[in-house]
């Protein structure tokens, strides 16, 4: 049986990034993971925007925020990675995505406020290029038309216009999506726009409504794997800049990311075992032996080292029974509130965030998770991403950035 250099457990941002970085470094990589991680992504690559969360202090410069965070929260996983490593990691990651049709854009050392499906503004570091014109339009408060569709439940243009009263030149229109009726689903709409004729039909419906608009915004449905082509074509057809607004997840952003990785990683020699969860793990001096999947179709995998990027509860890296939180694969000790009564706060929107969201794995400086004895569990087991303790990616706005950066660091520490 082949022994791989690295087994990457997980296929969310951290897992995908770890597989990518490891493969780029010439290592033989095998990856397991389920859907549910990256598939629910908004597509934003947050780095860090809020710290301290209790004060809800929002930073424009993520690196300044990182500095403050490293000062205030020495256990935060970001303290294990340097600014340079973060930048290199993001660059390598977005380069790869760019090669596979997903272009990213942001401002140097500055967070950008991006429009969400709720009409709120979310500070993020890098965002899909298809959204960029929207950032500009909003910043300029330009005459803009946002189009939404009958039957698409994930986005209300009118809601955005109502919430964004600070953007008075925002107009909205609801139209029928060409060739489809009833309930619409973003992925289907996106696929259908692979057909240039369909785009022309769409543009024809929008053009008369957009006479006064300088920009036209659509829900994120402009293409699946060919977004830049579709966007450019729509701009040509409409004669003005066009942008997308993310819809309520699960949106098209997740499938786009997955498609890019599904296409790109095997090309780098990564052996992927998607939808196979690790059901057994043994470690020894020499490395690891895993069983993925169960029953007659399980596969045995040997690897010298492993990166645990299995995510949190939804990613199934952590599991919770009525009393405790467990790490799903190695049963590593999980830092957690003392009892379930402390997991969540009485108010959902409590600015403190919920304690359970900071539960996770403790690691050493090389992101090696610690065992029960407080020492690294295994010399070549590293952890990356949301499974790490002392971070609340949702409240700090650091999800993808933290995942990519820690994956980078974990691979570098192999």
């Amino acid at each position, binding site marked *: 049986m082949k022994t791989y250099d690295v087994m990457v457990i997980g296929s969310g941002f951290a897992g995908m990034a770890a597989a990518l970085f490891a493969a780029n470094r010439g290592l033989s990589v095998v990856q397991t993971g389920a*859907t549910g991680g990256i598939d629910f992504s908004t597509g934003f690559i947050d780095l860090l925007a809020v710290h301290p969360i209790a004060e809800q202090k929002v930073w424009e410069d993520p690196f300044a925020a990182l500095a403050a965070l490293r000062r205030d929260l020495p256990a935060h996983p970001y303290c294990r990675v340097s600014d340079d490593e973060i930048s290199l990691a993001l660059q390598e990651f977005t380069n790869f995505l760019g090669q596979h049709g997903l272009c990213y854009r942001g401002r140097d050392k500055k967070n950008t406020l991006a429009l969400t499906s709720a009409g709120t503004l979310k500070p993020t570091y890098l965002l899909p290029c298809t959204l960029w014109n929207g950032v500009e339009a909003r910043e300029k408060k330009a005459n803009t038309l946002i189009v939404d569709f009958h039957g698409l439940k994930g986005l209300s243009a009118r809601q955005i216009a109502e919430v964004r009263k600070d953007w008075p030149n925002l107009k909205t229109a609801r139209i029928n999506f060409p060739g489809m009726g009833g309930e619409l689903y973003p992925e289907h709409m996106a*696929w259908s726009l*692979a*057909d240039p004729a369909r785009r022309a039909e769409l543009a024809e419906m929008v053009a008369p409504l957009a006479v006064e608009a300088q920009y036209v915004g659509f829900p994120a449905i402009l293409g*699946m*794997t060919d977004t830049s082509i579709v966007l450019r074509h729509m701009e040509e057809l409409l004669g003005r800049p066009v942008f997308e607004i993310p819809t309520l997840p699960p949106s098209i952003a997740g499938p786009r990311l*997955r*498609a890019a*990785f*599904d*296409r790109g*990683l*095997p090309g780098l020699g990564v*052996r*992927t*075992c*998607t*939808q*196979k969860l690790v059901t057994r793990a043994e470690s020894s001096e020499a490395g690891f032996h895993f069983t993925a*999947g*169960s*029953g*007659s*179709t399980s596969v045995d995998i040997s690897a010298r080292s492993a990166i645990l990027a299995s995510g949190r509860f939804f990613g199934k890296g952590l599991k919770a029974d009525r009393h405790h939180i467990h790490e799903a694969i190695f049963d590593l000790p999980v830092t957690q509130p003392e009892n379930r009564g402390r997991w969540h706060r009485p108010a959902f929107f409590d600015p403190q965030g919920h304690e359970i969201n900071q539960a996770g794995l403790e690691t050493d400086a090389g992101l090696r998770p610690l065992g029960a004895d407080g020492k690294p569990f295994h010399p070549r087991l590293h952890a990356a991403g949301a499974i790490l303790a002392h971070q609340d990616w949702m409240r700090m706005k650091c999800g993808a950035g933290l995942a990519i950066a820690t994956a980078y660091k974990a691979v570098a520490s192999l």
Partner: protein
Amino acid sequence: MKYAYFPGCKIAHHLPAHGKSVEAVCAHLGLELHKPEFSCCGYPVRQESRDASVYSALRSLALCARLGLELMTPCKCCFGNFRHALHQVGHDEKLKLRMKDLLADEGLDFPETTRVRHFLQVLDDNRSLVEDAVRRPQKGLKVACHYGCHALRPENITHFDDPFAPTIFERLVALTGASALPWDLSLECCGYPLRGRDETISGLLAARKMAGAKASGADVLATACTYCQLQFGGENHHPDQSIPAVLFSQILGLALGLEPKRLGIEPGEAWVRLAV
């Protein structure tokens, strides 16, 4: 290597070329095929009756077990249903008992260990054999691979390849010297299962895939499943909106230097000019 060859019902009348080409390729590669008289794999009746479908599959597997051979089929639907049947009896003791009774009626033992392989897996298992046997690499032929749902998904039952990023087909196409182009819809359904049930949707599914394959710039759409080929082949698609659908066994056969006639390729098939 010896296999019990399970052609599936559709080959004999509806797609003899598939049987011809698979048998020719196997013969050429020295893969011996035994041909006991199998029954239906149970896939077509799976819509109607679970027991009938599972029993149908197990009966053929029991025949393989008696021969002590692995089963090899060139059809993804047959493959998928065999795997499904085994999965079902593996997870339902009562069903297994019922099946054992029915098999015993025909003097057959329950096929505890019979392995089911698809033609592509068999080729992949014998890569070096194939590699050494290629005489006329199909350089210049651009292929869009169509995976076929029932082998690919659900992976935890079929265990064919990664269900999201499979590579087996592209790897094998590469062996023939042709180039496999990436395209978006390679894992999507051909729509055949809805033939005779919902012709509109069946047609739309096939047309969408064909359009995608054509847009990818490929010369041919390669299939490795009788049903998929039936759906894409023939005169189902307007030449302006489609590319020829070709059986992978025929592409491989040409690469091995076999005569088109032996592979069931009709003299009029234009794509052959692109090949060779």
